[in-house]
């Protein structure tokens, strides 16, 4: 496998934003190594905090909780490497699963219904791909629209109802384990697909084309990369994988509701960006993304064990996302500014801003003092 350092095309650096902003991979020469270190720290801290952390059964059970995110993350890495984004994945997942649930409620055979769900999700991907590759609309705008559209269709299908009573042979997909081992079926599927996606990204012409598009789309176009075809296929793959993730989620829950997976797109993008994939495209690796998924999974598992609310967990993951882009840049800036002279104005601004935030949190806790003091 080739490393992500492969297409170090510098022509894209002419874009001003690119010149000032560097990705994580530039700052930490080996971002993946850093992720491994972070994973070890999280494991050590969690082991100290909770006796239930290092428990094979617990880890096996919790690992399947992140497979939907993982399945959607694989094509997301491709898409982000080309400098695009797909915000509609979680909605597509809800739409596909709801369609399957609707058909199941109507008495259609579960496998036929699942196939129909996959087809609808792929169709959703076709819509995204068509609007982005053929109509040439920005992926952000298109997928923000389909983000609402797909979720709306999911609600249209099931309304306030839920689909349940899936047969055991179907829920095996989300709840079963491979053979007599502790490895969940969904995890095995994810690992297999991650290897395939990794090989495609790092060892094929298609993969190299993705980096070329992400580094400089114009240059790639003139060197004969079939940009429209590639972009179209990426969003179709993403739609298919989102639908598949929807099936896995339905199988794991044993039911489908139209709001299934709401907000998961954030988790998917967080895992991708934290894995060192540059949000502006052109840089990143599949193993970095898989490592960051592992990190987020272990972090959430650990936070769950010490009883942190799921919404507060999202806050921490959101903070992690921002810090993972923010901190390297600040570090770089401080390093670059060493020579420049000390300026009172900057210091005053920094002090003022810190005071502002401190004031905010003082009020935040003071206004709820009796309640928040209890925890």
């Amino acid at each position, binding site marked *: 496998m080739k490393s992500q350092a492969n297409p170090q095309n510098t022509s894209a650096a002419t874009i001003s934003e690119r010149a000032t902003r560097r990705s994580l991979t530039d700052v930490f020469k080996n971002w993946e190594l850093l992720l491994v270190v972070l994973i070890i720290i999280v494991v050590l801290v969690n082991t100290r905090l909770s006796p239930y952390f290092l428990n094979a059964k617990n880890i096996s059970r919790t690992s399947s909780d992140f497979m939907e995110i993982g399945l959607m993350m694989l094509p997301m890495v491709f898409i982000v490497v080309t400098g695009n984004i797909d915000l509609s994945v979680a909605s597509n997942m809800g739409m596909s699963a709801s369609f399957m649930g609707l058909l199941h409620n109507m008495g259609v055979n579960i496998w036929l219904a699942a196939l129909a769900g996959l087809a609808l999700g792929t169709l959703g991907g076709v819509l995204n791909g068509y609007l982005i590759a053929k109509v040439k609309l920005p992926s952000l705008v298109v997928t923000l629209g389909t983000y609402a559209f797909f*979720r709306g269709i999911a609600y249209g299908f099931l309304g306030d109802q839920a689909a349940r009573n899936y047969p055991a042979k179907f829920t095996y997909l989300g709840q079963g384990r491979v053979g007599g081992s502790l490895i969940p079926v969904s995890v095995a599927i994810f690992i297999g697909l991650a290897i395939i996606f990794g090989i495609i990204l790092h060892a094929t012409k298609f993969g190299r084309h993705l980096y070329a598009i992400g580094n400089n789309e114009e240059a790639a176009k003139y060197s004969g990369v079939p940009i429209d075809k590639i972009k179209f296929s990426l969003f179709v793959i993403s739609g298919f994988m989102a639908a598949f993730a929807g099936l896995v989620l339905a199988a794991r829950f044993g039911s489908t509701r139209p709001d299934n997976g709401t907000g998961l797109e954030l988790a998917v993008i967080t895992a991708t960006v934290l894995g060192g994939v540059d949000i502006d495209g052109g840089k990143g690796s599949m193993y970095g993304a898989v490592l960051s998924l592992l990190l987020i999974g272990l972090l959430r598992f650990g936070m769950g064990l010490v009883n942190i609310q799921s919404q507060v967990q999202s806050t921490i993951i959101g903070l992690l996302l921002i810090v993972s882009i923010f901190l390297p840049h600040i570090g770089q800036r401080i390093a670059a500014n060493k020579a420049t002279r000390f300026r009172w104005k900057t210091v005053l601004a920094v002090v003022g801003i810190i005071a502002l935030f401190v004031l905010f949190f003082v009020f935040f806790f003071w206004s709820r003092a009796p309640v928040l003091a209890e925890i």
Partner: protein
Amino acid sequence: MTDQETSIGKQVPRQKLNLLELFSRFREVGIIVFIAILVVAVSLRAPSFLTINNLTDILMNISIMIIVAMAQTMVILTGGIDLSVSSVIGLVAMMVGFTLSANSGIPDIAAVLLGIALGAVLGTFNGLIITVGKVPPIIATLGTLSIYRGLVFFYSQGTWINAFELPQSVKLLSKGKPLGVPNLIIIALLIAALTFIFLKFTRVGRNIYAVGSNADAAEFAGIRPQRIKLLVYVLSGLISGLAGVLWLSRFESAQTNSALGFELQTVTAAVVGGVSTSGGVGTIPGVLLGALLLGIIQNSLTLIQISPFWQLAAQGLLIIIAVVSDKLISKRIVRSK
């Protein structure tokens, strides 16, 4: 009118400028025609549509959307996006709500100012991670969308603010009618007018367009793009903070899921109203029409008894149609040149 909007920061030849002008005008005329068709069609099926009560209802329902869409428009004009507005509204409504219920006798104006101040701090945080931290706006505000929402859960600890915990005067802040029309509608129109004047007639307002059209060119022209960007996120937080207090007043409650998903409506209003997501193009009257169109669609879907579950799908479809038609029209104009 749109002449100025496109000329700053963009070196567009005269001929092309006229075409763009034509297109922008066409865009607003297009929305008006669409609204007119919709109004005629719906009032034929549901005569109750064209009553003063229903029209006031529509305006009441889109007022907060208009207010936040003004903030969203300023952000999108610089080429950014603020997805965190809904969480800012939720957090500010919750914090102001608890403060009001725990301390009786706080004057209304203090509550409003508190909301604005809290919102401004949250907006400053957004602005700093985008300008100083160089985090792309979409990622930054997607992150703070969940951070601020998480703070709502942490702050409320699962409880909420009910109508009886709020002073009557705060409830009347949006619903009182000293001028014959509910205050909320007047506040929304006032903010729209202020934003219009700010963007059109002040130097900083013009700079927002310049930065969105071409940040590099703007910098050469002596504008500091980072400062302008920081400013629009602070303004966005500030306006969303005000919207949070108004939300509390209008719905007489603050819940953990208050305004959940509302960010999308504000983006839709702006995009349908002709604001280009790549920055630099868009007008306030256009956004007002976009918000009106959204409000009429929501209202008429209910009146002609379409399941509320399909309304989100209709909204999503509308964004897609708006951006596709926008693209196709501009393509045709370029070709016909």
